[in-house]
């Protein structure tokens, strides 16, 4: 995928999703004579990682797992044998769609004291960077997601994660960030950053993830 220009300052992402998959579909206009033929291409994510997809048609499954790996499919038939498309070919097929794809967001992880909605000292320092990004880049959306470690029960942690997300939202609005773009979500202990067993103290899971787009 080509480097895209964005008005976001590129502070390196601090959350890396482990299983990103990017792909492209190209369907020819219905005006052309049938049968329709679709093209499906696997793309790398912003960090260059390649996922994997399955294309199923005509009773046959084909797996795409390499950069630029593509198949074409005609109605009622199995997918073609996978082939590789060059970046130029991909851009000429679907340049405008690729350019329209939302740029990689700026993401921050803020950590909290144990069983508390108070930020750690280091995260308080990082918070100043968030304020700058939130104010200067005119974001469409600031998503604040609260999380906990696995100590305590499901309900309690949902509440704690909600308090953490709300605390960050309040700090941002106190700094004059436009509240109409702020969205708060909370997931308790359901999506740990570091996988642990249940009832395990893990400071890196006591967090709020702030995604600015």
């Amino acid at each position: 995928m080509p480097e895209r220009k964005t008005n976001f300052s590129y502070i390196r992402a601090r959350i890396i999703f482990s299983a990103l998959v990017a792909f492209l579909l190209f369907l020819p206009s219905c005006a052309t004579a049938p049968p329709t033929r679709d093209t499906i291409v696997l793309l790398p994510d912003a960090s260059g990682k390649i996922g994997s997809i399955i294309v199923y048609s005509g009773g046959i499954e084909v797996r795409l797992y390499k950069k630029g790996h593509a198949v074409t499919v005609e109605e009622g038939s199995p997918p073609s044998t996978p082939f590789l498309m060059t970046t130029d070919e991909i851009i000429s097929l679907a340049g405008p769609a690729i350019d329209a794809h939302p740029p990689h967001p700026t993401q921050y992880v803020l950590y909290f004291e144990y069983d508390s909605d108070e930020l750690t000292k280091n995260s308080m320092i990082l918070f100043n960077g968030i304020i700058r990004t939130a104010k200067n880049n005119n974001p469409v959306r600031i998503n604040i997601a609260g999380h906990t470690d696995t100590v305590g029960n499901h309900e309690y942690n949902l509440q704690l994660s909600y308090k953490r997300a709300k605390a960050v939202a309040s700090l941002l609005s106190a700094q004059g960030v436009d509240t109409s773009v702020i969205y708060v979500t909370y997931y308790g202990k359901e999506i740990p950053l570091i996988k642990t067993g249940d009832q395990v103290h893990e400071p890196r899971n006591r967090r709020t993830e702030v995604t600015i787009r």
Partner: protein
Amino acid sequence: MKHALSIAILVALLCIFQLAPVSASDKSIGFVQSVSGEAYIHRGGAKISADTGTQLHVGDTLSTGSDGSMGVVFSDESSASMGPNSNFVINKFEFSPNEGKFGVLIRITKGTFTYLTGLIGKLSPESARFETPTSTIGIRGTHFLINVEEPVTSQ
């Protein structure tokens, strides 16, 4: 007479069942990040001009004109885009980790479409499905890359 009554009850039930999905789809499941040229959201018979920040609901159809393109972000931080003369429908989008519920069904009927997975791709990749007029596409975790094998083809 009895018969007419049971039909009336049946009709009433149908109305209730028809109402239920509408209220369920009121919840926002994403938003428009960027728009260029003609781009619309079709919702319950209405054609809304898409704009930056416009909320997306389950059941929405997104479309673009000959000069249009649009980028959207879903609630699981996955993102999608479409080029000119394109059309896709969000038949299903559920991201509720607190209840362990996940599901995506997006039907692409025309044009170009890109998708980048988010948390559903990480937590429950098998629950996401994309359909085109010719095929169905599913997401697999990167762990499949370790067992690299020649794909099964028709040849």
